[in-house]
Each structure stands twice: as C-alpha cells, then as structure tokens.
C-alpha cells in the first residue's frame, strides 16, 4: 500500500506562482494533453500535468525537490495544445524562479532579484561602488588619456580597481550558487529517498555537459524550434567573452608576472588595453559581442513571435534579457565611442557597462542566470536516478 500523503494546500504559494508569471495556472483541468504533446518528458510519471496540479494546490514540497521542473525547457508545445488555455511552460517557469529563490542564499537577495521594487537598489550598489572609486581617483572631473592621446578605459578606471571589485563579487556569486545548488541536490536526494553517498556521477556530469553544449533538447521542441538558435548564440558568445576576459588578463598581468619571475615577457603580451583591432583577442571579443547582441535580439523577436502559443514571460525573464542586452549594447558602444574618440559618450557608456556586468555576476545565483546551473544539476540528478538516459 502506498504511503499516505498529507496534502496541505498553500494559497499563498498559488498566488505567488500566479504573480510570478503563471497567470494561467488555474485553467488546467487535468486532461493530460500537455504530458502527451511534450517531447522532453520521460514516459513514467511525465510532466507537466502533475506539476500543474501540485502548483494549483500549492504543494511546493512536491515541486521543488523534483528535477522535472528543470527538465522542462519551455518549448510551449503543451501551451499550444492546452484545451483550456493554460500555459504549463509559463507556470513551470514561475515555479523554477521560486525554486531558485527557495534554495539560494542569502534568501533576501533571492527575493530582491525576483521583485521589481528592488531593481533600483540592486543597480545602485555597483553604481555607487564605481562612482566612489572614480571620485577617489578624481577621474570624475578630468580623465587622463594614453600617451598617444587616445581614450583609454584602463586610464579611466585602472583594471586593478575593477578586478579588486569583480574578483570578490565573482567569488561571492560562486559560493552562493554552490550553496544553493548543494541544498537543491540534498533536497532531491531526500525526496527521492536515495542514500546521499552514491558516487560515479562524474560521467553523468560529462554527459550532461555534452547535452548542454550540443543543445540537443531544444531540437525536440515543435512550437518554438527556433529558440535553439538564439539560445545557442547567447550561450556560446558568453563562452567567447569568458575566454576574451581570461586572454586580456594574460595581456595585462602577464608581463609583470614574468618580470617578477625574472623572465622576459613574451612579445605578444600587450600589457594594458586598449589593444589594436588587428589583435586576435579583439577579433574574438568583437565576434562574441556581436553574436551576443544578435542572440539576445533573436530571443526577444522569438518571444514576440510566439507570444500567442507560449506567452511573453514575466519580470524575471525580462530582467535577465535586458541585463544581457545592455551588456552587449554598452560593450559595443563603449568600443565604438572610444574609437570615434567621443569622450562625452564613451565614459558614461563604459560606466554603465561596468554596472550591468556587475549586476549580471553578483546576482547570478538569484537571477535567471542561475538556471544554467540548476538545470544542469537537475539533469545530472535525473540521470542519477535513471529518470533520464
């Protein structure tokens, strides 16, 4: 005999799902069309039908510690065919957001990133930090230029300062994320009744990574097939930019480190920026920037194109989209203004660029950015419990 569930309905949770972009939640009448048209769900206890019911009753204990909400990629095939106009994709998206809030620490940041009214505050923090630094350097009034007299962001705000801000921020982000994800994992283990110590997941991780890199899952979507392209571009441009950053770090600190080691620096280590457009680093940087811009633009275009079938998405999604958008935009503009030598525009734009980049990194564990980690974790766990091949 199956053990008895004591279900305690949670009206507040239901309301939160609705506020969080799941307006259509209450339309579902459990016909199970969604589970059938979904190409991503496993055949046994498929999603999203059961998730819709749990969400309607506010049974978060059945929703959060469950990889399924992340196995859903919001193809929206379910939404297109739902006979009641419910949008399971959006509902699960709202639940995913709440799940990130639920697991991430510190939780107040989770709530803050999730809700409009804190946006200004969240932006104010990096803005303040950078303003203080600039003020202390006196660069708010007069900005030094390079020997050649060009605009130089390195002169404007030396990398050392930037890094001394971003390195701790990145660390903070990584730690928060690590804690959140491990809580998530533990919870899934508890819920699925697995013993915690079960090794041999290394190969599962690599399999998952391959799955992510290849974007295989997106191909299974029908209604929103094209999402593969946009996500692909955004995803790989981020990787490109990550490499660029590492590369730049090598340029910047390479010489001094080698000197310190008593070696002769390589000739290709150009030292501080700016770098000539002929330099391969620039090629990669600009290529990635453009890819990012295109990718994120497509994201917006597709969302509008499919808004009937899959909905536009809520604040949480759009916040992330806008951040990425402004990173790409300000990045490219900053470069252009620099080359065009329009100081009056170049510096402010660069400043904004720094702020949004900070925003992206610092809040990653709580923003939609975190989805890549949580989803990856869920995918690994699903394989771990043989829910997924």
């Amino acid at each position, binding site marked *: 005999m*199956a053990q*008895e569930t004591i*279900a305690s309905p949670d009206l507040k949770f239901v309301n939160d799902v609705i506020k969080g972009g799941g307006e259509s939640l*209450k339309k579902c009448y459990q016909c199970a069309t969604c589970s059938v048209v979904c190409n991503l769900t496993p055949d046994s206890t498929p999603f999203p039908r059961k998730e819709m*019911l749990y969400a309607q009753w506010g049974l978060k204990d059945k929703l959060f510690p469950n990889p399924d909400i992340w196995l859903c990629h919001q193809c929206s095939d379910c939404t297109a065919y739902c006979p009641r106009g419910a949008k399971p994709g959006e509902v699960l998206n709202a639940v995913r957001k709440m799940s990130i809030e639920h697991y991430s620490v510190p939780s107040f940041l989770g709530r803050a990133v999730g809700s409009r009214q804190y946006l200004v505050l969240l932006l104010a923090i990096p803005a303040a930090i950078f303003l203080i630094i600039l003020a202390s350097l006196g660069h708010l009034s007069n900005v030094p230029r390079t020997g050649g007299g060009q605009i130089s962001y390195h002169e404007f705000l030396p990398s050392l300062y930037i890094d001394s801000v971003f390195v701790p921020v990145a660390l903070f982000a990584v730690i928060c994320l690590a804690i959140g994800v491990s809580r998530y994992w533990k919870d899934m283990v508890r819920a699925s009744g697995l013993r915690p110590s079960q090794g041999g997941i290394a190969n599962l991780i690599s399999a998952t990574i391959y799955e992510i890199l290849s974007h295989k899952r997106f191909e299974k979507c029908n209604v929103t097939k094209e999402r593969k392209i946009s996500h692909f571009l955004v995803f790989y441009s981020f990787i490109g930019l990550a490499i660029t950053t590492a590369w730049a770090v090598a340029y910047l600190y390479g010489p001094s480190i080698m000197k310190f080691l008593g070696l002769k620096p390589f000739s290709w280590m150009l030292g501080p920026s700016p770098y000539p457009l002929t330099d391969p680093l620039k090629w990669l940087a600009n290529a990635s920037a453009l890819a990012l811009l295109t990718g994120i633009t497509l994201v917006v275009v597709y969302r509008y194109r499919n808004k009937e079938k899959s909905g536009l998405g809520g604040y949480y999604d759009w916040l992330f989209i806008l951040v990425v958008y402004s990173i790409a935009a300000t990045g490219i503009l900053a470069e252009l203004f620099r080359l065009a030598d329009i100081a009056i525009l170049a510096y402010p734009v660069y400043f904004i660029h720094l702020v949004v980049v900070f925003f992206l990194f610092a809040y990653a564990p709580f923003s939609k950015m975190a989805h890549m980690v949580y989803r990856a974790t869920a995918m690994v766990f699903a394989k771990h419990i043989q829910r997924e091949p």
Partner: protein
Amino acid sequence: MEKKYGVYICKGCGIAGAIDIEKLAKAAKSGAIKEENIKTHDIMCSPGGIQMVKDDMKGGVNTIIIAACSPRVKYEEFDFPGAVTERVNIREFVAWTQPPMTDETQSVAEDYVIMGIAKAQRAELPEPAVLENLSRDILVIGGGITGMTAALDAAKAGYKVILVEKELQLGGFANKLYKKIPTRDFKEPLIVDTEVEKIIKEVESNPNIKVYKSSKVEKTKGQPGLYEVTISTNGSSETVKIGAIVLAAGWIPYDASKLGYLGYGVSKNVVTNIEFEELAKKGKGKIFRPSDGKEAKKVAFIQCAGQRNPDYLPYCSSMCCATSLKQARYVRQNADALAMIFYIDIRTPGRLESFYREAQNDPGIMLTKADVTGVSDAGNGNLFVEMENSLLGEKAKVEADLVVLATGMVPATRAPQEYLDGLTQAATKGDDAKKAYIESTPKPEFILNLDYRQGPEIPSLEGAYGFADSNFICFQYETRRTGVYAAGCVRQPMNMTEAQEDAAGAAFKAIQCIDHVARGVAVHPRAWDLTFPDPQLIRCTACKRCTEECPFGAIEEDEKGIPTYMLSRCRRCGTCMGACPERIVSFKDYSVDIIGSMIKSVDVPEEEFRIIALVCENDAYPALDTLALHRKSIDPSIRFIPLRCLGGMNLVWIADAFSKGIDGFLLLGCKFGENYQCHFIKGSELANYRFSKVGETLDRLQLESERVTMMQVAIDEYHKLPEMINQFVERVKEIGHNPFKEF
C-alpha cells in the same frame, strides 16, 4: 347509413406484373360487392386514379377499398373525407415479397383484398365523443421554481391556473439558496441572486393564477377535462374543477444521516450542500461553521456523497458539481479562505462547461479527482478528508475546518410509489399479508391522491427510483396517467434552468390535453384518433379484466363491478378489447368482430398451410414494409393483420382461426419487460401473457401449443424478420396440417 362500395385495384409498382389483376377483381366479387363496384387503374395514386374514386364518391360510393401500396405511403392521395377507406397493402405484402404470377401469390393477394373488404363492411366512420361541461383550468401541484414557471407559462398562454403549495410560501428550494448560477454569460462574480421573490410576486399578482398555500391535494376524482380536485388548506377543504394537471412536487434531499462514514451526524462541521446554502444565507455570504461559529477558511466539498453508489443513490443528481463550484465561490468571497473540491468526475455538461472553467479560475478553488473513503476527526472541530486514487497521491488526506457533502435529490414521488408497490406485492400474497402490510408500514403522504381503481399515484417505472419519468426517449411527456404531466425534479434530476424548460413543456402538454378532450380526440400517441371504446355493457359479466389491464387506469367500476369508461383518460390502444372474454368492447373501425371476420375470410385450402400473423402497427408493420422495400421474400402461407397494439389481441381470434383450419398463429410485437418499447406500456407483454393462457383453448381443440408463438421485433429488425418468420413456418409445417381443415 347504407354502404355503397368501391374496390380499386392498382396495377402500378409491379403489382400487375406479379398478380393477375382480372382474377383478383373477380375474387373481390361477393354478395355486397357487384362487378361494377370493382375498378382497376394503371397508377391508382395518379391524378387520374384519384379522380376516378372521387367521381364514384359523387355517385354515392361511401366505402372505399384501395388495393395498392402500404397505408404508410400516399396518405395524402388516398385521403377521402366522409368515406370509410380501407387500404389493402398488395404492393409491399404481395408484389414486392412474393414470386410473380404464381398461384400462391395470387391467393395471397386475393386473401388480402377479401380481408380488406371484410373490414370495410364492418367499419364505420367515427364520431367523436365530446364530453359535457369541461373545465379548461390547469392544476399545478408544487410551488417551487418548476411549479411557478409552469403556472406562469400556462397563464401567459391564456389559461386559468390553480397552484397548490404545501409550504407556507411559494419558492420551494430556491428560497433556501444564497445565490444561484447565472443562466447566460458566466462572468464574475459568477454567483447571482435567485430572484425567486420576483417570480413569486409575478405568480401571486397574476390574475389567471390562484395560489393555495399550506395546502395539499386531498383527492383527484374524474378524468381530464372533468377532474374534481379537493384541496385541503389547514383543515378546511375546497373542491375545484380541473382540466389537466402539472405535477411539480419536486424533491427532498437525500437522508444524509445514512452517511456516517463521511462524518455526517458525527461532527457538527459536516453539512449537506443544502445546509451549506442555509449557512451562507444566514451569514450573508460569510460561512460560520456550526460547531463554534468560527469563520470557515478551509472548506472541503465531497462530490457524489451517497450518490452513484448502489448502497445509497445509484443515480447522479446532475446538479451537484455545478452547485459545489458555485458554493466554492461563496467561500472565496473571503480572499484568504480556500475551497477544495473532491470529485469522481466533474459533470458540467453543455454550456455549463464554461461555468466550470470560470469558477475554477480562482486561486483559492482547488480540485482533485479522488475517491473519498471517509472523514475523520483532526481535532478542535477540524476534519480530515481521507481519499484514494486521488491526483494528490494514491492514498491521501487533507485537513478542512468544514466539510460539505454534495448529497443528491430524491423525488417527492418516491415514498408513495415505494409504499404502493409494497402494497401490491403484499396483496399478491393474499388479504392477510395486505392487511399486515398496511398495519406495519407507515403511510407516506400521497401527492395526487387519484381516485383511480389502479391506485392513487403515477405508477412507478422500473429503474427510475421513484422519478415520475417518461419511459420514452422521444416523448418526454408520454405519461402513464393521461392528463397528468410531471415536470422538474419529480421527473428527473435536473438543475433550475432545465427545470424551467421542463415546466414549460409539461404546461404545454396540459393545455394540449385540455384541447384534445374538448374536441373528443385521443391524446398522444394516437393524437388524431376520433374513435373510442364503446362497450355493450348489457353483456358485461363484471370479470374486471378490462379494468385491471387498462394500461392507463382509464376504466373504473361500480359497486357491482360493472366498468365505467373514462374516455378522456383513454388512449385508444384497445387493450380492453383484447382483455374482454365477452368481446363486447368495440371501436367504430376496430373490434373483435372486424379482426375476427378478417381472419375468417382467409381462404384455407386443404393442401396448403395458412398462418395468421397479428402485427404491431407501429413497429412490426413498418418493419415488414421496409423488408418489402428491400425485396426480401416472405413465406406465402402468412397473412398479416395490423393491430393498434398487441394488447388488443383477443384469444377468441385464435379459437376462430384454428377451428377454421388455420395452421399457425403468430404475434409480432415490440420488446417488453424492463426498457419496454410498447407505447401502450405492456401491450405485447399482455398478449404474451394471454398466449400463456391459450394452452387450454388449444388442448380443447387438441392442437399443439407450438402452433402459436409470439416474437418481439423492433422496427429496425426487418432484416431478421424473414428468418424469424420462416423458422416458425417450418416448425408449423413439421407439426403438420391443422386437422380441422377437413370439417
């Protein structure tokens, strides 16, 4: 009136190709029918043919025999007002089902024509029996939504209405409701005022409607158009003349005290859906639970409580799902309260699906499919609803601070029907058993109190659990008591809107009945029939068979047991005619003598087999026509004779037939038993029962009982008919010739 005959034989549709028309014409000749009275035509239904007949009518012909196609076709052409017209079906029964130009085929045709003539010789034109000083007023029993709607509709159609309500005020259950479901567009807030007060005012202010409150019908005497209804109002009683009756006595809630396993009677905080309405009404929308007056914040609705379950109510009351969704909206008038609905299936058919969709679209209304197994105490007045196979889990329980049981409706007619059925049961065991039953069983309140020999209420219907429903899908108002039309939840479980539609229908049938009675015409299904049973009571032996067997209780009897025919209760099926051993019941065009003489006029050659088949006019006869249309062949030894209903089958015909040398006797009637299809309730069943008695007749004649048989055949089973018939013919042939042929 002296009869002047015209026999008209059609040659069209292959008749002339199958039958020797001249020979047929000769055969038609007899004492009464002169040669010049017999005419033929290539296409009798053509203008020429019709004209020929009409000219003869000018010449005085008043009795017309048309030997052509089935009476079911060309009915407009062969309509000769003022003349007795007999249609002889030699197209379907001969030309299309017999091999052409054989002696046998010829004899089939000749028999049919002679049988037709025999009938025409005895049939007369009907004159309607119009009763005197009839009432056109309508009695409506029950002042709920159904009764009030029926009263208003009848009044608006120009009829006077008397409305009898047992309670102090009109309104019925609608009075108890806090709000109702919108009838048209399902827009927020989805719960609207019942407006019952408005309807009550409209009824009470309508000059055509007289309302009797705190009243009941003490006695209903007489017949449609001539009812004398005694209405008693606390003590005093008054008798009114009534034309027809609408029975809208409504329903009572199922006795929830039988639902202990769902906590009813155990916890104060388990209430029925009706009690919940009263709570909501009392709290003006706020729900304060009975145990401690605390406002209920977590209300559980258990659907099908004691319904869809053989141990309680087997049926579905069909209104509970929408009702619980509505009541969930009551709960949700408090933004932080929630309502949980546990259902087996959500049943919101038709347009109500949109109500379901809208009502559900509320964060605080949670639904799950579940088989609720019980309700248990969760402390401080709260309760656990325990369930299996729920969408929440195979086995689950949920805490609630108030539980509402969606209990069902029991028709007001159920108690009387059960009592009376019990009484009939007991009576079969003898008078002592009957007496014992009467003493031991509490007598429920009757509703109609009909002063009928066959009992005071509408007879029960198998499988209807006391609902005064029609047995016929096509005819929802085909009542078992002429002039009494049930409407609303006394007829079937239904919601308010459906009940109002139903009320209109029943009111209309009452009006129609009054109109037909005034014209001396039968009511449905023979709504055109001007004939009526006209018994020669001098020869009556008071055997009471007719009074017992009349399917509609149309025959009363005096103290000497002599029947009195209540013509406006009568549906003209002729069951009394079949029941009467003295053969004294006759209609102008339908009598024991007429059918008997048709049988006797069949020619019985020694070497041939002859079988008589009496067939139901409504099902078997059309089936034979269709069979002919498909040109399937029928054994030539059979002669078909249509009856209004097999209930009219009189055993004397069998005796006549066999003593004349007929070899076999076949009845083709409709399905009987549960789900019977006979529109005269038990015609074929009665015929079958009489057949079981035919044994002694046959024994007296020393004949084998297999020579007679009855078959149940539906109108669409024509493809099976030849097989069925031929089997019987073969059987008879095995038995051999009827020894009486020699004499």
